[in-house]
């Protein structure tokens, strides 16, 4: 008797990108765009806020880019990309209707679901707001048993007002209940917000630092000083989660390009708890 052929689930090789169509393109700043993507060959696995994908600009190369929306939302996959090199520039120039490659999702996530009943403070610098956008949306969805939302404080830093990402959406976060502080390094007269570093704003966040959780992403120096300020304000070290960036290439812990001390950022990160080991590694000179 002939054996009936069993259905074999398709196993995709993690190094093979899937084609996605650019169905939307929104300019955020002079050098940064958000691409909305829908699958052409079938979707990648479900993602979580904080993870990243490897995006391919066909014929140019591949680069690691954080997922910038809430994957649980019923909307296209979104990546916010700053044009800083050949691949990211090519991705930014991909027109609506064009195709890009997507591998992923890779790495650890912000663990929003684990935050439970904790209030949260989100601290973002520059393009570091992109990986936090999905987490902010998810945090705003959390509700206490009373139906009241948990306290969420968002502190955003940028070089100047023209470099701010998601300006309209930030106002929507504020309307949804988030306490928002936006600060820039320099501004022209007429800017009514604060001018200075994000660490100067932290003490004004209306959260209980002893119990709240912090999600921090941005330049690494900013992350270190933010963490120190949060300690000074009474936040326990293990309540702080940070996202790091290195030269991620394979995404699956094989090539070693993204090694930082004992970690491979693509596999063990990009999101880490800012424990003593993390602080020591970030303070060391190994790169």
């Amino acid at each position, binding site marked *: 008797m002939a054996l009936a052929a069993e259905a074999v689930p398709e196993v995709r090789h993690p190094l093979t990108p899937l084609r996605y169509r650019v169905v939307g393109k929104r300019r955020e700043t002079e050098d940064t765009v958000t691409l909305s993507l829908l699958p052409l060959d079938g979707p990648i696995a479900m993602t979580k806020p904080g993870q990243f994908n490897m995006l391919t600009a066909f014929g140019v190369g591949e680069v690691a880019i*954080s997922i910038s929306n809430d994957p649980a939302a019923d909307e296209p996959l979104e990546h916010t990309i*700053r044009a*800083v*090199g050949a691949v990211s520039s090519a991705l930014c120039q991909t027109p609506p209707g064009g195709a890009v490659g997507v591998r992923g999702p890779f790495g650890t996530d912000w663990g929003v679901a684990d935050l439970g009943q904790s209030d949260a403070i989100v601290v973002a*610098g*520059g*393009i*570091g707001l*992109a*990986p936090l956008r999905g987490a902010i949306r998810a945090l705003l969805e959390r509700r206490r048993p009373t139906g009241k939302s948990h306290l969420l404080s968002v502190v955003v*830093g*940028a*070089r100047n007002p023209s*470099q701010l990402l998601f300006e309209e959406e930030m106002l929507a976060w504020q309307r949804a209940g988030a306490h928002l502080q936006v600060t820039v*390094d*320099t*501004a*022209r*007269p007429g*800017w*009514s*917000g*604060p*001018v*200075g*570093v994000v*660490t*100067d704003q932290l*003490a*004004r966040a209306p959260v209980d630092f002893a119990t709240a959780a912090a999600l921090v*992403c*941005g*330049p690494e*120096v*900013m992350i270190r*000083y933010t963490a120190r300020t949060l300690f000074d304000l009474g936040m326990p070290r293990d309540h702080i989660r940070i*996202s*790091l*960036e290195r030269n991620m290439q394979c995404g699956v812990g094989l090539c070693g390009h993204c090694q930082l001390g004992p970690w491979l950022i693509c596999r063990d990160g*990009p999101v880490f708890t800012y424990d003593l080991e993390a602080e020591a590694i970030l303070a060391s000179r190994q790169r």
Partner: protein
Amino acid sequence: MAESIAELIGRHPVLEGLSPEDVEQVAGCSHNVVAEVGEVLFREGDPATTLYLVRRGQISLEVHAPGRESLVIETVGDGSVVGWSWLFPPYRWTLTGRVTATLGAVAIDGNCLRGKADADHELGYVLMRRFAAIMLQRLLATRLRLLDLYGDGAGG
């Protein structure tokens, strides 16, 4: 009931914890001020005579360059302090201070306070420690901004 100047000073984060005697000394040089958005509190080059303990609101510190638009280099908000130029010769403001959110502050007469600190070095030392801590914090913040952290290639 309105709070006294001494109470406002004693509760301000920068001078919180000072002895009642020291607070009274400072209060003797102080008065309450309110200023609206757009008001210029001091101008670069003018004689510097005042230290502002900001209770609420915001002051932007601007620097001017001939032929260029002014730049806001820093803002000072709730619970902070602005104005060190009265401490050091030639006692002139080095920046322009403009109110960008309705201001409630305690204005301390720098000449008066300098006189009291000269006469009572313990008071002077206590105040200088408080002010130096803020200057250190501002110096670190300035150094961080010099790094242009959000420049090309930086961030997640």
